[in-house]
């Protein structure tokens, strides 16, 4: 999807918006306008997503309007990639919608440029939220985003495939080497038709969790890298014996299967990723059942796990209807009936009030139960990632893929990634 033109567009928009933003500055009014049932105010709400989400959101908006006759909500939506091009242009033109669905990786970028409303200044009830979750919407003490829902990192596996190979299902209490021997066993018995998983060391978030298990922060609060080259070397060397064996899906195979994943294409028996991929994996693979277990750790008391907001609700700093925006956000994140409308299609509801008011069944229940089962291991979510994090995450995967192709040695790969990361951090400093 990302071609040269797309890239240029993003760069152009980014540069231009930065220039335009510098001219904008702070000039928000202190009091928001309010409406009445006879003369309602209209707020704009925008989100990304497919047909299904549009339908659910429409229901939620109708419910909100019936409960709040003094506010009308005008809903718009686009696809994910276009969403951010549009927001960048609007931010430069000063026309961001009043309330927006937001992604964690863009929060710091827009928050630091004073494009988003400090939600600490308006009335939104966050008492039903997991305390460890809220920092992920905050930057330097200001709350820019309220999580609608959460996801957690997990190891997926397909019980039917393991049974067909005669391999016992994992319990989720395992060390890294136990996890690796599990992958090796699948690869050996699968004999070229079924592999263990993709190279998990190429997944940024898995690396991040591994760092957390060693009590290292991936990024310092000053926005610098919190780990050393040696840490990354150790991480990528972890799989050096498995690369090229049937424990890992060969890299050319991974590329051939795109845009689907090897796990979704029934080529591997396990995969490490976020638990909200469940519905997608079930649809892609056609498997009857998929299960989730916690990630491996050499320290059984520290799994490094945390809840990450799968999406957030934010408001524009320039909105004229702060009060109405706050009431709408509060409704969308806390109302139990909204939970019943969305189920887990946004992720597991973050607010306990909303979660308890929602009935989960089938695959939804598996994901909710998984997040409940890891509750005791959860630690504070990291602060929103640094500006340009998306690029770093992508290059992490790309360089790891070169590593698997054998184009780079571990040392070379580490140097290549650090160079990109340091350049990027310098640029955005």
């Amino acid at each position, binding site marked *: 999807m990302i071609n040269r033109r797309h890239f240029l567009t993003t760069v152009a928009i980014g540069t231009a918006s930065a220039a335009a933003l510098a001219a904008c500055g702070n000039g928000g009014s202190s009091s928001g306008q309010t409406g009445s049932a006879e003369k309602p105010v209209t707020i704009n709400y925008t989100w*990304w997503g*497919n047909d299904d989400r*549009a339908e659910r959101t429409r229901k939620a908006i109708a419910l909100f309007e019936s409960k709040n006759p003094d506010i009308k909500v005008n809903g718009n*939506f686009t*696809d994910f990639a276009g969403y951010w091009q549009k927001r960048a242009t609007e931010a430069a033109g000063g026309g961001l919608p009043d309330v927006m669905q937001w992604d964690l990786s863009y929060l710091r970028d827009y928050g630091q440029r004073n494009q988003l409303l400090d939600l600490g200044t308006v009335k939104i009830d966050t008492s039903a939220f997991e305390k460890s979750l809220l920092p992920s919407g905050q930057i330097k003490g200001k709350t820019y985003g309220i999580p609608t829902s959460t996801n957690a990192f997990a190891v997926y596996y397909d019980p039917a495939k393991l049974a067909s190979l005669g391999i016992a299902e994992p319990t989720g209490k395992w060390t890294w080497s136990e996890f690796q021997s599990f992958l090796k066993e699948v690869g050996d018995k699968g004999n070229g038709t079924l592999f263990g998983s993709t190279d998990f060391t190429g997944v940024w978030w898995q690396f991040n969790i591994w760092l957390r298990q060693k009590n290292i922060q991936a990024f310092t609060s000053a926005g610098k890298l919190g780990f050393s080259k040696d840490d990354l070397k150790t991480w990528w060397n972890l799989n050096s014996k498995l690369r090229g064996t049937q424990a890992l899906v060969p890299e050319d195979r991974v590329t051939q*299967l795109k845009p689907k994943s090897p796990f979704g294409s029934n080529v591997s028996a396990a995969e490490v990723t976020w638990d909200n991929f469940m519905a997608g994996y079930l649809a892609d693979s056609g498997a009857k059942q998929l299960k989730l277990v916690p990630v491996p750790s050499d320290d059984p008391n520290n799994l490094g796990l945390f809840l990450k907001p*799968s999406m957030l609700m934010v408001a524009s700093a320039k909105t004229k209807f702060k009060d109405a925006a706050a009431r709408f956000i509060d409704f969308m994140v806390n109302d139990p009936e909204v939970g019943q409308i969305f189920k887990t299609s946004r992720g597991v509801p973050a607010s306990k009030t909303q979660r308890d008011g929602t009935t989960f069944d089938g695959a939804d229940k598996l994901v909710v139960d998984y997040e409940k089962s890891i509750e005791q291991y959860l630690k504070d979510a990291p602060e929103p990632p640094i500006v340009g994090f998306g690029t770093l995450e992508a290059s992490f995967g790309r360089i790891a893929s070169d590593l698997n192709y054998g184009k780079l040695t571990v040392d070379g790969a580490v140097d290549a990634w650090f160079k990109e990361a340091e350049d990027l951090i310098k640029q955005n400093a």
Partner: protein
Amino acid sequence: MTTTATPVQPAPGATAPAHNPKSESTTAKRAKSTIFHAAALLLTCVVLYPALWMIASAFKPNSEIGGQNTSLWSSNFSFDNFATAMDGIGGVSTLQFFTNSLILAIGAVVGTILSASVSAYAFARIKFPGRSVFFGMMIATLLLPFHVVIIPQYIIFQQLGLVDTYVPLLIGKFLAGDAFFVFLMVQFMRNLPAELDEAARIDGAGHVRIFTSIMLPLMKPALISTSIFSFIWSWNDFLGPLLYLNTPDKYPLPLALRLFVDQTQSSDYGAMIAMSVLALLPVLIFFLIFQRYIVEGVSTQGLKG
């Protein structure tokens, strides 16, 4: 293999091949032509394969598209994807998306034809002070990357309160904003003999008369190629509508297409591909109707009888 290796013995009484140059050159020609056609056919297959893949995939269930599945045709042939595609998105019917795309495309064609031909006439036939400077400036806008003007343009239209209308998408077409088409028509007009206008002028025709009665009919090939291109460009435009339209019921097809693929949830590739096939049809029909005029335009070089 052995037969080709053994030298051919000339049959007794038969003339040597060299004595019959005519028949030999015919076979050689035929062989050449066969090879040429085979190669051309092969290339066509390579070029058309993605289109074939798209059409074939439109009839497959979503789970059989991409991934491990390499076969072109599926045994689970069905029209389900088309049904899903026609259902629309988020309460907006697919017909609405088609209508919006058509309004935009036809508006673009009409606007471009009207404005570009008039501007081209001015540049090619009227001598006015600073003509070459203005012409140079117009050509220079071709060199200006579109992305540089996105933000300023957006700010202008936003301040004018024209965001979420079709005005920002069409106004440029009515103001000869596409320098490429103006340039194309200027070049075309310069090739038309000046004697034609001179004769008209002697008969007492003014610029309006010369333009409508002499130039426009002669420019038909240029007008047709312009229509085809501006129709296709507008039909395929994604970024413009994305930035300027907010309400889903004003979206054209390219925006709607993207809504079937959602990275954060499950993607319905089947419906997206089915919709792509449907979206392709109008452009294809438009092209088929008008393509013979392009060929005609090239062969007559814009001059008739």
